[in-house]
């Protein structure tokens, strides 16, 4: 079968990557207008981290080592963020009482810009790899079936 697990990974990744891009953009948009929006935003943080973790696991299973390598740094960054939460066990980020501090705000904004860039580039990289692995006809066929 021409359609390998790796190709499946890339397809799924493309979809999820779009979701991640949406998350990040959404976070960027709202951050200047917060109030309790922090509460909503926070709900997106863990899903984002989980989806990205899922990518890494799938690429590992599919043996796409190069792609995995590209994602490892971000994975570690997410793990670091997650385990260095405030001592009171609250949010990973976007704590409403401190997010308006200029330093934190700038950091969050820079982080979103970087992630946005990273996800966009990965999106195109995944598309490229997909095409490389599968012939265009297969892809068309798959798209047709959907």
């Amino acid at each position: 079968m021409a359609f390998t697990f790796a190709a499946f990974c890339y397809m799924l990744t493309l979809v999820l990557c779009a979701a991640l891009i949406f998350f990040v953009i959404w976070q960027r948009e709202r951050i200047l207008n917060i109030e309790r929006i922090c509460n909503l935003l926070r709900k997106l943080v863990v899903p984002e981290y989980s989806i990205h973790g899922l990518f890494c696991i799938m690429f590992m299973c599919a043996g796409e080592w190069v792609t995995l390598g590209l994602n490892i740094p971000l994975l570690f960054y997410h793990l670091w963020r997650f385990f260095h939460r405030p001592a009171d066990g609250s949010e990973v980020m976007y704590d409403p009482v401190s997010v308006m501090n200029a330093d934190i705000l700038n950091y969050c904004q820079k982080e979103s810009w970087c992630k946005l860039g990273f996800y966009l580039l990965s999106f195109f990289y995944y598309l490229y790899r997909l095409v490389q692995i599968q012939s265009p006809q297969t892809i068309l066929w798959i798209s047709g079936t959907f």
Partner: protein
Amino acid sequence: MSTAGFNSQNGTGTGTGTGQTYTNGPSQNPVALQQLPGVNYGMTHQSTYNPMQAKAPAPPGPGLYPSGPYQPAPPVSSYQPGPPLTSYPSAPGQSLLSRPQMGGPPPHTPPQSASPSPGPRLLPAQATPPPPAVSSSSYYQNPQQPMAPAWQYNTAPPPMGPPASMSAPPRGPVANHMNPAASLAATAPPPSSAAYSTAPPPHMSQSATQPPGPGMPPTSLHGYTQTGTAPPPMNPIAPHAYQPGRPAYGPPPTGPPPTMKPAPPPTGPTMANATPPPPKADAQCGGAVNSTLSPIEPDSLEGDIECPGAVAGNGPQASNSYNHVDNKMAGLTQPGPPGRHLGHYPSLPPGYQNTSAPHATSNIHPAMQAATQPYTRAPQPYQQMPGGPGPAQLSSSLAAMSLQSSTPEALRVVNLVQERNLLPPNAIPAPTPCLTQDLQKINCSPEVFRCTLTSIPQTQSLLNKAKMPLGLLLHPFKDLSQLPVVTSSTIVRCRSCRTYINPFVSFLDQRRWKCNLCFRVNDVPEEFMYNPVSRSYGEPHKRPEVQNATIEFIAPSEYMLRPPQPAVYLFVLDVSHNAVETGYLNVFCQSLLENINALPGDSRTKVGFITFDSTIHFYNLQEGLSQPQMLIVSDIEDIFLPTPDSLLVNLNECKELVQDLLKSLPTLFEKTMETQSALGSALQAAFKLLSPTGGRLSVFQTQLPNLGVGALQSREDPNQRASAKDIQHLSPATDFYKKLALDCSGQQVAVDLFLLSSQYCDLASLGCISRYSAGSVYYYPSYHHQYSPAQVERFQKDLKRYFTRKIGFEAVMRIRCTKGLSIHTFHGNFFVRSTDLLSLPNVNPDAGFAVQMSIEENLDDMQIVSFQAALLYTSSKGERRIRVHTLCLPVVNSLSDIFAGADVQAISGLLACMAVDRSVTASLSDARDAMTNAAVDSLSSYRQFVLTIQQPGLLAPACLRLFPLYILALLKQKAFRTGTSTRLDDRVFAMCQLKYQPLVYSMLMIHPALYRVDDLTDEGALNINERTIPQPAVHQLTVEKLCREGAFLMDCGTVMYLWIGRNCHPNFLTQVLGVPNYAAVPENLYLLPELDTAESQRTRAFVGWLRDQKPFFPSLHVIRDESQLKASFMQNMIEDRTESALSYYEFLLHLQQQISK
């Protein structure tokens, strides 16, 4: 007292407000208002300008100075002359000028004539002339002497002059005087004149207007006209002229007098004589009188005077009121010393100065005084600096200013290692920004609004190079004795950035003004052009909004999201066994019973009570019940309100039930054996009860909550208290309290926490409930009704203040700054809702805020920048009000100027806030290093970039000479010290206070004041309300300064220690402490016996005076060598070496070593 004053203001304001335009707080307004009725703004005030004029000869003045513009005519000239007088130095402000004139008048005949208007008064004054001294006073300064001074004459000054002296004498009267005089005049023109002295006849002519009622109108017109004509003038104006005066200013007291003397004297004296008595009355009544008399007002107003004309019409009164306010303010300010002013803003128009404030002044704490002083300086004038001070003006004025202010002295090189006695004997004044006098006169009081760098660097890179933090310290809701209140259907704001119109905007012409924050050109609304009082158009720059850097508006309905909420107070009381043991319930109930009628509020005020231990008890107080009904809810996991409608009841309708409950509450739980505490559930219940209306939630807690939601565990390891390693557990253990606080904030509920506990309570976690809901935290460690009488007394006094102080509900505060500057971080208790918006469910007069700023865009082409803090709140009477403070500061582009403008106290205060944050987010040692580095960096930057001659030693500019001392003091402060046994709660509480208290009080926490009190004398004493307050010098905090023969009082803000030397003079022991010898001094003495001896009276007067300056009640502990508290006392000896910390000298060497690296 302040409170009282305050309230009244509000009250008045309100009352008046409605009617008229603006009233000042006090009654005056009313009067004024009356006249104005129709008009909205009563304002007219223009006073500022006029003020001067007013003062004296009102008429002339006004015109004059306002700028030259105004009146081109004669007046001007006269004014100018004024300058010459020098005396006025201060004059810079127009007001001054005017005064001078006035005072001067005599000298300058012409001027006087000009003055005339004020004439009446003035005349008299002139007559009086004799009193040379007075003249000097003219300053305004004089707060005390107010009146006269206010006027042009200021005579009073002399007395005042020396701030230090403060001697009260003059003050009282003075302040008022202005108005009074005016009033008088109005009433009985002739007499008044006489009284005034100054205004002698000559003035009259011009003054005519003012003169008594009749004439008035006309007069005013004149005045007005002049102004009118001059319109353009606004600009720049006079400042220059005044400059001369400036210098004088500096010196305030003395300086001026001399110069002035010639002319002034006359007036002054007269004034003094005549007026003095009346003064206060005037002030108060003044308003009324004025109104009637219209004419008079001018005087009072001083500034107004010009407007006066206007005033004369209907408006006059308004003006007056205004004036009054101003006056007070002014008075205060100038005097600087007077201190008391506190409230006042210096800025007011020159005229004001006088005012009653004087008394107040005296009281003020040195520090405060200092603060005030700055203000004073700049008298009113404010002219609008159109565009900013013209360069020319600036430079000239700068030159003048600098003389006195910083530059020279501030940059004097001090070798810290060699010079030991750096501490000034009195309070350290806030540095004065290098602005033109006109601007400085109207600038916001440093007590309200202070910046760490009074000269703002042009670029961020310059700021980085200076290595000093840029930030603002605010005390926005401070009790003010004078506060102009404006009622108007439209509040003039910039259409682009929504800045409120303020004294630092520039008028391009009569119809357009340019925002000083975003530089947008806005139209002047028709309503703003009209001066109801004078019934004339075209003097928008004379309205009170443009004359006062601190002003309050009664907000129209656009500023309400919902109908203003009533005052709602809910008390949540811990009644577990532990709480009953401490006996706090008795004190609480007793105190609330006594003050139940003094709770701020109106007929809608509601109260409610909840008690809790392991269950939650509600009290049904519904009208009609014969006695309160207790409802117990034991399901603490899912809390609900048993009868939601009858738990919060109208205080007036159900007062008897409430009183019954308070009487029975302490006995209700006497025998309880319940030891658990379900605080979290009680808070949730309280939140549910309050969320429909919002309000204030007061929580009394005596132990660690250990049941239900929000339960905490003890995290403190007593063995680690003295650890030199990092302190753990400074951050909250749970986010329950933070989340609840955010919910509260969203529903406009503020939580005030009273913690009375002998054991660890985890304030770090509990404190969040207050921090994010804009409440306050009170902490009474080891509170017990029998074992800690000092704490009980403190608790009683604090409760009294807490129940009766002013309160604002559903408030928000927005801080705006000139384009290019941006807000980096806020410090204090609040929730930050947007980058520049603080949500404050409650705001109280004892809350301070700090803001770190950064420079995002270069401030090229700007000579001044402004900061505006606008606090929108609902008063306890259900009125929506906006209090606006505007601070203006110069922009500089050289490092030496930045250093010259450094405000060491503000810098230390801001660093303390930053260090608290750092301790929580990083670690305590990190915070300590950061503070040390702050000192090293700024001093090495100074050495590297500013010092031209490299010399050995640790060099600092004079303005930063105390910086290393304050940093060392911070390192040894309870909040940041290591190696000394400190309970975790004590430490966290100290941190809360550093962030939350206004600078004046936090400075005492950082660096206590040490006085020797066994040899108090009346030399240099203050005189307040007929009490003589000795003013001993402040000593350095080192054991070296203590001696066995003496007795020393240490004022640490919330606590005072009276240390008795072993060989203390027996005279002191018997006459003050009432004990025969040292051994007989009781171990736990916390009260000074009321003995009928001079020594005892002096000591008690001094202690009482120190206490009066604080909104909280410092307990006093008398300690001797064996006392347990001796260690606490000795730990405040900052300059000495301890086991774990460096001495001051060692610290300096350490800094020196770091710098030379």
